[in-house]
């Protein structure tokens, strides 16, 4: 039998049971749509985060913290009691291949202005050094970042100035805001405050990174030391001569040795690598979950093909009596499920893509109020804009997977159909 005739025969059998074929196809559609939606959203999320980290991070920097590992902006408490101090930069600066290093003191506090409060991260930095390291993100949108700031100078992140993203400003350049920090280690805890002068609002950074944040305010490091009453720093950022992995490794090692292996050193590249491996696990996991639904669809196909085999036993007998080869019977049955699989995969990829975009849209829309709430509670995550990405690998993979699963699950019924004996099949009622 010519392949075109085989195909049209398979197709005529599907057409006969439109509802049944439709529901079976729906199973494949759901499975494939779930895979495509999850994978393209994950891919989009990974791309967004990687991009934001690359802007937030400078690849030629290392971050030294007091141990307990480095976790995005949160201060690790060293179990051994090891502390990092502002003047430790002098030790680090002596290490070969280090261009410069700078200390950062950061605490969570409030900014008060016009009778309102906003939770912010108060970050004490040397403005000149910070601007040098994060030259693309520590940039003023309005006002000026003085490289030689007054003691009361405050630079605020975009979302501190414009928390609702609607030009209703919380505070602006030249406002005098009250900076509040609760010293919880004092007994009883006390609020310490001072009046700061907003000299600049930063450009929007977006998302999160290690560098400047939209939800932070920046004060001179010397002011931070006196305000917080400590010269213990949260982290030291080290700028290297280059971002070769050999340089990163040797400097990391040297820094650890300098602090008797108690400091933890993190490179931006390492964080990106960890992130990408985390994402491959997530992708695999989500893909696996989605694949289960396709497996269910596959069992549905097998079920329906076995029913079809029962119903059409006599038909198969007729075909064989007319001289059809067993192989052709096999191909007809596999063809039927391949058509269902292909149709389901194509529709599934389309609807998965639509689904991914809807989810991304909801995410973006939700980000507006989520952002507001989160800012109020001091969380850092912004409503990130995710653009789902459908890679050719995912597209072709989903297509092949849909057809593949359909065909594999049809193998058994098709094989049974092909093995039917003509005499017995013809006698079948």
């Amino acid at each position: 039998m010519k392949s075109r005739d085989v195909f049209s025969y398979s197709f005529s059998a599907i057409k006969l049971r439109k509802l049944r074929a439709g529901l079976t196809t729906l199973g494949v559609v759901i499975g494939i749509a779930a895979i495509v939606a999850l994978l393209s959203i994950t891919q989009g999320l990974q791309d967004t985060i990687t991009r934001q980290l690359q802007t937030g991070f400078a690849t030629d920097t290392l971050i030294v913290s007091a141990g307990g590992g480095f976790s995005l902006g949160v201060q690790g408490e060293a179990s051994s009691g090891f502390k990092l101090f502002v003047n430790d930069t002098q030790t680090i600066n002596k290490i070969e291949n280090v261009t410069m290093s700078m200390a950062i003191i950061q605490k969570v506090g409030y900014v008060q202005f016009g009778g309102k409060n906003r939770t912010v991260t108060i970050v004490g930095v040397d403005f000149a050094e910070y601007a040098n390291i994060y030259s693309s993100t520590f940039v003023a949108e309005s006002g000026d970042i003085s490289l030689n700031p007054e003691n009361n100078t405050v630079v605020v992140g975009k979302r501190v100035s414009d928390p609702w993203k609607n030009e209703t400003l919380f505070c602006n350049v030249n406002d005098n805001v009250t900076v509040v920090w609760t010293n919880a280690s004092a007994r009883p805890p006390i609020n310490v405050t001072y009046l700061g002068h907003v000299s600049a609002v930063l450009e929007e950074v977006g998302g999160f990174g290690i560098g400047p944040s939209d939800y932070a305010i920046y004060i001179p490091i010397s002011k931070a030391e006196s305000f917080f009453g400590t010269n213990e720093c949260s982290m030291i950022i080290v700028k290297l001569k280059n971002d070769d992995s050999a340089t990163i490794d040797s400097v990391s090692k040297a820094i650890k040795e300098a602090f008797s292996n108690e400091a933890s050193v993190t490179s931006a590249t390492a964080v990106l690598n960890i992130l990408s491996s985390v994402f491959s696990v997530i992708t695999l996991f989500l893909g696996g979950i989605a694949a289960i639904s396709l497996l269910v669809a596959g069992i549905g196909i097998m079920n329906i093909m076995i029913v079809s085999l029962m119903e059409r036993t006599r038909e198969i007998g007729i075909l064989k009596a007319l001289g059809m080869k067993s192989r052709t019977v096999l191909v007809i049955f596999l063809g039927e499920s391949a058509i269902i699989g292909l149709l389901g995969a194509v529709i599934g990829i389309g609807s998965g893509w639509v689904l991914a975009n809807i989810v991304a849209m909801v995410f973006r829309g939700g980000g507006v109020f989520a952002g507001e709430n989160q800012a109020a509670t001091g969380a850092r995550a912004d409503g990130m804009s995710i653009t789902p990405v459908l890679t050719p690998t995912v597209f072709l993979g989903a297509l092949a997977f849909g057809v593949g699963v359909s065909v594999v699950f049809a193998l058994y019924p098709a094989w049974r159909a092909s093995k039917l004996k003509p005499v017995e099949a013809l006698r079948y009622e």
Partner: protein
Amino acid sequence: MVAIVEAANLKKTYLLGKIPVNALRGVNLKVESGDFLAILGPSGSGKSTLLNLIGALDKPTEGKMLIEGVDVSTLNDNQLADLRRRIGFVFQFFNLIPRFTARENVELSMSIADMSRAERRKHADDLLETVGLKERMNHKPAELSGGEQQRVAIARALANNPRFLLMDEPTGNIDSKTASEIVGLIKSLNEDKDVTIMMVTHDQRLALQAKRTVQMVDGVITKEIVN
């Protein structure tokens, strides 16, 4: 004349549940080209089993079944399928594919035999004209009477220019008036188109139209009459 079908000491045993049934107990038969043979016998006498063996739908348990000199027992699955394409089978219950029109049913056997689309369309139309169903060729089996369905089945059986036609109670499931029309058609196929026919029947009247009749009882041929 050359024997196109030759059975020698043909035996067939099959299992009905767990009980072995000796359907054929040594049949000897020779059919030559152009013959019109009727196989008569009560039910259970092995007529249909014999017809299935001649039609290469089944293999004998013992003995030889030669079709055009080839022993069916020696053929594999694919070779049997090829052989069946050269045999026209007409069943008591028509066995048309319900979702196909009359024309498509006739075309089906040609498409199985790899005939091109244009060629088989023309041939199907000619065949349906021969069996007198040209006007109804776009109807599906459910829209056709028993007699019409059997004509479609005969047209289908003739589609690949078979060496011979096998008919299993071709009039068993249609009314007597239509049956005599079908008998007329079968007879004219044999006389005018020189088609070799082997036919199983209960119908004494139909058997009389054949050139030769064999009587079967309990899996053996007991009597042979030349009409």
